[in-house]
């Protein structure tokens, strides 16, 4: 009995030690967004195409479409002079073309709404939205309202921020 109790105490100490470890030792938050497509390329999509994360989360984009290449490209003037659709203080990214099973990572630290697209499939429309933090965070910047630089189809394909925050992630298996 005494031995068992000692084991429990040791276990409890271990848990406490883990919880009190400096943040730098604990695993940083990470999420995966897949690039998907049907066999004949009729439909292509990000999965999920709506995602809520905490600041500091690393997003890994990976191409799971065996018959196509894709990009993850932030709407930003640095990328082909597109209108900015990510927080002003955030760094834009462009994965360049990812062949099947290739991946690209980006860490998002600035609270706000990030919209991105796939270069060869923007007209599809293969686009996605990531919400970092929530509107109560310092420095939060909400979604862009611009409709000049994107088509109506792209604008309508971006999930609502409220829905992303409510659900955490929005995805559909076949991209429809």
């Amino acid at each position, binding site marked *: 009995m005494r031995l068992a109790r000692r084991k429990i105490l040791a276990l409890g100490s271990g848990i406490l030690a883990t919880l009190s470890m400096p943040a730098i030792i604990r695993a940083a938050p990470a999420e995966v967004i897949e690039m998907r497509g049907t066999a004949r*390329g009729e439909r292509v999509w990000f999965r999920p195409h709506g995602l809520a994360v905490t600041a500091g989360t690393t997003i890994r984009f990976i191409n799971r479409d065996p*018959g*196509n*290449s894709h990009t993850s490209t932030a709407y930003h003037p640095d990328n082909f002079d597109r209108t900015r659709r990510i927080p002003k203080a955030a760094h834009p990214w462009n994965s360049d073309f990812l*062949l099947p099973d290739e991946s690209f990572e980006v860490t998002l630290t600035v609270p706000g709404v990030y919209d991105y697209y796939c270069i*060869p*499939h923007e*007209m599809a429309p293969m686009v996605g939205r990531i919400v970092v933090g929530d509107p109560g965070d310092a420095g939060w910047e909400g979604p862009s309202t611009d409709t000049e630089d994107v088509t109506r189809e792209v604008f309508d394909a971006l999930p609502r921020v409220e829905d992303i925050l409510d659900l955490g992630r929005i995805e559909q298996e076949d991209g429809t």
Partner: protein
Amino acid sequence: MLRSYMLSATLLTMSAGFALAHDTEALMESPPGEPYVQVSDVLPLPEFLPGLGTLFVVPDTLPAGPFLAYDHDGKLSATVYMTPLEALSSGTAYNDLHVGSHEVTSVDVYYNAGHPGVDEPHAHVVLYHDADAKGRLAQ
């Protein structure tokens, strides 16, 4: 005079027919040679595309093609055309396109959302050159 004219016309026809047959014969095995280039060498796409195989195209003929589609053994299996829907609806016609082989056993037409090289919604028109071609190009 008339006989001479008919003979010349016959020879010309035979010559053209021979050239056409010769040209397609040269395309039956991969690589088809210049001016064709392998699509995966010039665009960020996999070397073998499931459903389409290994593609070669003459860059000047983009976007319509023809794209010559070879199986894993380098056998010409299909000729593929890619026609942007917006261009078609705007009145663009793609006429007198070449074929990789004169033997066509079946044709598939289907929608594609886009890919490097033809990065807009378009139709794939696939002419299969033998009964087993679709299966060999599948994976």
